[in-house]
């Protein structure tokens, strides 16, 4: 069973999507480690190390995602997490922005997959299967 870490980064308390992601991924056979809302980069990284997770799914809804996710890839590497996949989704920037540009910004920051607002979490399931192998 593939292990994935999920949670909501920064000072963000949007809990609904997070609970639903846990439910859906579990139903799809993943071992879901949910660190919940108000989680720091450190919390994500520690959880991934402890559980030997294949992917970290960062949620950010409240708009500060761009600030909160800064250097996350570098911090993973520093912690020795070289192969973990980094996904991010939700409403990851402030305001309605052109998603192509947003995606480019986050890919430059080292995220493997970037999702626009209201993404169907089932889409990520396909990607997880591709990226983690099954």
């Amino acid at each position, binding site marked *: 069973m593939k292990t994935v870490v999920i949670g909501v980064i*920064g*000072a*963000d*308390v*949007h*809990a*609904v999507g997070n*609970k*639903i992601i846990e*439910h*859906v991924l579990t139903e799809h056979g993943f071992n879901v480690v949910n660190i*919940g*809302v*108000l989680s720091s980069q450190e919390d994500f990284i520690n959880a991934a190390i402890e559980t030997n997770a294949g992917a970290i799914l960062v949620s950010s809804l*409240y*708009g*500060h995602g*761009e*600030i909160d996710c800064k250097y996350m890839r570098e911090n993973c590497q520093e912690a020795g997490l070289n192969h973990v996949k980094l996904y991010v989704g939700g*409403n990851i*920037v*402030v*305001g*309605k*922005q052109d998603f192509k540009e947003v995606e480019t910004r986050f890919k430059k920051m080292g995220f493997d997959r970037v999702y626009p*607002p*209201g*993404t*169907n*979490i*089932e889409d990520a399931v396909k990607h997880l299967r591709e990226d983690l192998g099954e």
Partner: protein
Amino acid sequence: MITNKKIPWDTFLAKREEILRHWETGSSPMLDLDKAVETLKNIPDHKNFAKKLKQAKERGITLIQPRAGVALLDEHIKLMQYLQDEGEADFLPSTIDSYTRQNRYQNAQDGIKESERAGRSLLNGFPAVNYGVEGCKKVIDAINVPMQARHGTPDARLLTEIIHAAGWTSNEGGGISYNIPYAKNIGLEDTIRYWQYCDRLVGYYAEQGIEINREPYGPLTGTLVPPSISHTVAIIEAILAAEQGVKNITVGYGQGGNIVQDVAALQTLDELTNYYLKLFNYNDVFVTTVFHQWMGGFPADEAKSMGVIGLAASVAAQGKATKMITKSPHESQGVPTKEANAEGLKASKIVVNLLKEQSFPSSRDLKAEKEMIKKEVNALIYATLNVGKGDLAQGAVKAFARGLIDIPFAPSEMNAGKILPARDAEGRIRILEFGNLAFDDEIKAFHKERLEARAALENREVSFQMTIDDVYAVSMGTLVGKPRVRGNAA
């Protein structure tokens, strides 16, 4: 142990000294209490939140207010002026950014700098503490309607000091409503204490003859919250505020989606809050209501979002809410541009205007729904009083700890998180999993029966899947979530 008792003035003043040291802007001479009283007295009536609400209630009309706030002061002022002039907002908000809400003033300071550099707001709101009284004063001086701070701050004591000293005459929040939906592991005792402080300050100003409005935050998690639960929180917070001397309170409710239930909720919210305030001998509190346009996930499509906004406005007007918080066509995407925000306002404004002479007729159905809400609220308040041995503050802490009051989808560990809501066949919000919620068997049987009727219609079991379907429903364009084909979720 916390109690619902007015904070002695000395205790307050001692605490105040400490609070004002939390961030450098706390040292402003404008925070001198006499100076603040003077500032507030200079606010003309039409910019006083409490007075404008009173008038609206007396006239039986519904006024409108957006959510809005950006990182940079000048931009924020322009935004406010735009929403007032172009959006025809009756009240203005300064929605506070999320770092400030978590008292991370240094992060907020960085956010201001990064926003200056980027030329666009990187913060999701206005960092009022960082701008201090002087900055906040510039905001109210630049506009012509009352100003309120809207946030979600568990410990808003410094923020509260600053905004009132700047002449903002309303503050949203409360010890429960700004904790359970907005925090993870801050104790309820703590937040109730923080908010007693905020209320005590308003009580002090009231003693100086200054009317300031306070608004417990009604919609909680905004997601399938049964009216009786949010009403209970609103009533408790109204009473805690009244004890500290607050005289002008707006209790809130977030649109559920079924019109009859929503109108019943608005009417009972007013009736019950007044009833309990009087029961506890707070006889001179003026109560108004605020209706929040749909607080759950919005449809991605902008025109559909405008439809949701129009519908919401029609419900607020028919239910005679005194105020309505509006949404925008950008809701599902992100913080709206000022133009999108104004669109939500204008669509709302015309609807409340068109309906201002009308109200929802009384009917058997409406009465029954009101009766049910009242029964449920009475059960919850009674249970709270009971575990609190007659003290509502103590009672609230214990009621949450034991799950007697329980809020669906809340992030806080102070909340049991055991109840599961779902809609009945008509789209009214009911409960399918009660946890320890303090409902008696008769009430539970009612909920069960309603949900089973829906399940029968849909040819499935009452289950968590129903809740999930209902969470997504509005963003998918329906109210009652229909069973979805597996692999086709979301």
